[in-house]
């Protein structure tokens, strides 16, 4: 009887079947419940996220002149599987690219996804697009996506305005907002105010089938977001003054910074040689950026914010104020000047005879006076020790915003150089240095390095008789609030030096421009206060420096001008500062001959020779 003999085998068969079913259920559990990777894969299969790119905000100058706007630009997209035979040469000619380059990009697109569209050529200009549009019917599988490109109205102020470029991998990894293909401001206002200017991207989520054909909106669009246009920004810049400054500085290496002392608003910020900001727009960037980077004059380098020069004699105003506040001198203190100040064999040369008081010492930029004064500051008995007196002096210098970042809204600022006492203690040994060791600091040479931006701010501090507002480049962000810029720009940064001391120094600076070294900066009908300076340059001819503000009472503009290899302050920096102030205050230039001389002066060839 077979039936009974093997009937218990039904259990074996049943157990085998059951065990296999259990294995399947376990496997289902792992892929459905344990492993979330499949859910992500499913999403990437069916969702096509279409980004709605907002236009960037516009930028205006202080007089509401448009500086930056957007222009339509076009990206060429391709869906490889839809492409039919077409005239490659024709398309390449329209795009202005080579066939090899185009083929390379096309292969990339094929590799990326045959059924998905991908960008093959970016930022096609309006002109090229108009040609392309006529012939699009000849290129099946290609589509055009509208984007915007930045346009800069004036070929000026490149360092302030900055530029935008496509977000790189590092940024995308750091900041989840950015996705490949996004543009981001990388310098100037474009960078500092990126969050306002960029607006907010919108996103539409479509559901697609296996051939990437759109099947509708995901959940009827409840997860879609609308794009918000970027906010418009009003800059503090006076574009006319800026352009004029750039013209005065043509063929010269250097910087001009102009600030409105009562507010800290930056009126002009010139760094030469500069470049036309439109060079770094769209597909042109790929060609121009390497050229600018390789240029030996470094046009991308923002000298106004980043170049540290010794302040030269302009620094005497600061030392005078510190001396007065510390009480080591008073307004009437005189020191003898007999052709210089001697320390052993070393002589800090000077050219005056007899005895000078403070105002005259500033007027004539007397080296000896400020050497004596500096020995008094550093040797001040109330601090007991030289290094304590030095630290106090350093703190006072920094209260003018010198030798530290001002925390403005321009990103490229550097600290500058003003060493702490530890540096000298380490270098000379504790107790082995005195005012005489560091005497060159008294006249702004030696171990000091300030940027034109910092010097201009210090000058504005003097103009304000004791305080400054942190310089800033943006006046207003159009987001409906009246005081929309950062709170810190409204706060006075006090130096702690009495107003009456400033009056004496300012009197000296006035005399500089009336009958001293800065006569070239005189502006007809305006009381100008200024101070010349010469930064010693071990590599070549000295740098010409001038700082000034005007009018003397109720100042409207503070300015610092640096001309590399320009010699004495009076030679180039003072006349350029004068012309700038005249332009800003009077809007007409009376001294056409001076203006012409400045326009024509070419210091770059000489500079180039010296560097070689």
């Amino acid at each position, binding site marked *: 009887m077979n039936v009974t003999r093997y009937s218990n085998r039904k259990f074996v068969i049943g157990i085998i079947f059951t065990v296999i*079913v259990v294995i399947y259920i376990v496997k289902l559990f792992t892929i459905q419940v344990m492993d979330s990777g499949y859910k992500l894969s499913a999403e990437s*299969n069916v969702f096509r996220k279409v980004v709605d790119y907002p236009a960037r905000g516009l930028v205006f100058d202080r007089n509401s002149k448009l500086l930056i706007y957007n222009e339509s630009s076009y990206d060429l997209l391709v869906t490889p599987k839809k492409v039919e035979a077409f005239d490659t040469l024709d398309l390449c000619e329209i795009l202005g690219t080579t066939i090899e380059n185009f083929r390379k990009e096309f292969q990339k697109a094929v590799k990326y996804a045959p059924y998905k569209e991908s960008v093959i050529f970016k930022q096609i200009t309006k002109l090229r697009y108009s040609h392309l549009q006529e012939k699009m019917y000849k290129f099946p599988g290609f589509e055009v996506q509208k984007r915007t490109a930045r346009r800069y109205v004036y070929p000026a102020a490149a360092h302030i305005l900055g530029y935008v470029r496509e977000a790189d991998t590092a940024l995308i990894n750091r900041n989840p907002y950015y996705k490949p293909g996004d543009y981001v401001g990388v310098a100037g206002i474009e960078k500092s105010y990126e969050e306002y200017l960029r607006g907010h991207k919108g996103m539409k989520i479509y*559901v697609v*089938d296996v051939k990437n054909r759109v099947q509708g909106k995901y959940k009827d669009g409840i997860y879609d977001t609308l794009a918000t246009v970027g906010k418009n920004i009003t800059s503090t810049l006076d574009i006319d003054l800026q352009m004029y400054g750039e013209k005065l500085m043509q063929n010269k290496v250097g910087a001009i910074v102009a600030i409105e002392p009562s507010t800290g608003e930056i009126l002009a910020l010139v760094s030469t040689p500069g470049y036309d900001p439109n060079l770094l727009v769209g597909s042109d960037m790929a060609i121009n950026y390497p050229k600018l980077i390789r240029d030996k004059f470094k046009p991308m380098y923002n000298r106004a914010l980043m170049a540290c020069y010794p302040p030269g004699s302009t620094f005497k105003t600061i030392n005078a104020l510190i001396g007065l506040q510390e009480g080591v001198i008073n307004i009437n203190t005189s020191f003898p000047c007999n052709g210089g100040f001697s320390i052993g064999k070393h002589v800090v040369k000077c050219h005056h005879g007899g005895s000078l008081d403070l105002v005259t010492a500033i007027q004539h930029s007397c080296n000896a006076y400020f050497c004596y004064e500096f020995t008094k500051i550093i040797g001040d008995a109330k601090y007991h020790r030289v290094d304590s007196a030095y630290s106090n002096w350093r703190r006072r210098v920094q209260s003018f915003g010198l030798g530290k970042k001002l925390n403005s809204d321009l990103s490229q600022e550097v600290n500058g150089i003003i060493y702490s006492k530890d540096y000298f203690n380490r270098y000379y040994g504790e107790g082995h240095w005195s005012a005489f060791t560091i005497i060159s600091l008294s006249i702004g040479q030696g171990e000091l390095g300030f940027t034109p931006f910092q010097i201009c701010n210090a000058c504005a501090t003097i103009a304000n008789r004791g305080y400054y507002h942190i310089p800033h480049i943006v006046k207003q962000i159009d987001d409906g609030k009246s005081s929309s810029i950062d709170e810190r720009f409204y706060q006075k940064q006090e130096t702690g030096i009495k107003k009456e001391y400033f009056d004496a120094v300012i009197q000296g600076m006035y005399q500089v421009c009336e009958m001293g070294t800065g006569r070239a900066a005189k502006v007809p009908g305006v009381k100008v206060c200024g101070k010349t300076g010469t930064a010693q340059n071990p590599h070549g001819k000295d740098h010409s420096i001038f700082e000034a503000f005007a009018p003397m009472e109720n100042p409207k503009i503070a300015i610092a001008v640096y001309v590399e290899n320009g010699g004495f302050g009076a030679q180039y920096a003072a006349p350029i500062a004068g012309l700038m102030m005249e332009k800003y205050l009077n809007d007409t230039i009376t001294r056409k001959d001076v203006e012409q001389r400045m326009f024509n002066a070419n210091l770059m060839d000489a500079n180039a020779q010296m560097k070689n």
Partner: protein
Amino acid sequence: MSKQRGSNIFLSLDWIVLILYTILVFMGWGNIYAAVYDEKYNSIFDFGARYGKQLVWIGVSYIIIILIMASNYRIYSVLSYFIYGGIIVLLALVLIVGKESHGAKSWFELGMFKIQPSEFAKFATALALSKFMSAFEFDLTKFRNIAISVSIILLPAALILLQPDMGSVLVYFSMIFVFYREGLSGIFLWLVVLGIGIFVTTLQYQLIVVIVALVIVAGIWYLVLGKNLLNAFIAWGAIAVLTAIFWTINHFALSDKFQLHYLIVLSCFILLIPSAIYSYIRKEWVATFIAAGLIASFVVVFSVDFVFNNIMTAHQQTLINVFLGLENDPKGTGYNVEQSKIAIGSGGFTGKGYLQGTQTKFNFVPEQATDFIFCTVGEEWGFLGSTIVILLFLALILRIIHLAELQRSAFARIYGYCVASILFFHIAINLGMTIGLVPVIGIPLPFFSYGGSSLWSFTILLFIFIRMDASRDELL
């Protein structure tokens, strides 16, 4: 009770099977509707669409059931060879006049009807095999009997192979269970199961997993065949203890670290070789065989692993991996399996909800109404729904096995096992394929997959048995 059974076919009909069948068929229909569902175009009774057609096929299936239940149960036994012969003719004919589709000549096209004879060959072969094996003089130890019964299976299988339709051919190998039930030595069943299992698992899992699984399986086998619970546990315990000792020595004393699976194998060799010899002397064949089998299995595992990793070229490895559905390359050769797993995997615990599946709706899954219909279940009903479907299938098959054992006629019993084996093979291969456990073999999921031929053939296959079962008291 037994009198009542015979008098009224509706009282003797196995309602459990009919209910399970009905649930599965309509669940299948609902999922076909979801698989081809289109928001813009969705009338349920659109007979041009697949779900509309499937509804017609389901209707016809119930008519077939009524016809079968109304028929005389004896005709299946009497006509079995004629039905088989007819199907063989059709299988030969389809090779000549058949319509080619997907590279295989497997369809007759009669006007608007398309019929796949290989689907119907399953029940015909099952009938013929049952008829032959139920003969009074049939004896599985006689070579002639084995040769003929194997030929009954191989003839249609060979014709189908010529189409070629590999999936349908493999189904016939499921008959191994029928032979086992009728007295074929368990060794053959185990060898088949073990061989396939070792080959696939060695390539799919790490060696340690395979080795441990083998030790456990050998123990269970010993437990079942040797009926010796204590010895099985002693053997496991001894292996575990010895492995632990080796592990300790290896971990603390040796500078060259051996991987754990080598230690387990070493322990097994040390324990099993003496015990195999001992049991051989004592003529305890079960123990000898299991010990030798386990050692042989280890040899096979290491050779498969060695050949695959050290001798085969990268290209050959890829071919095998793709055949096994292991290649993880969404756009390449393993695309179908990967998309299928994505669809099922994205369903999560409770699924995305009916008609909410995105992967199946937008055609990411290939053949989603036919061979990959389970993707729709997995995506829209999640782990819960998938498990319920699998358990319903298991319940149906176990019920069939149970009923088969109640048969007094060997013919009906053997046929019942044929039905259970064929259904199980289809389900195991189809589901295994969609979740990446077995190679992609294109065979339908019974009662679920779209298609009249497959639905009708499974209906006929199943309900001929249910008809026999209804009259089991009369049939001898």
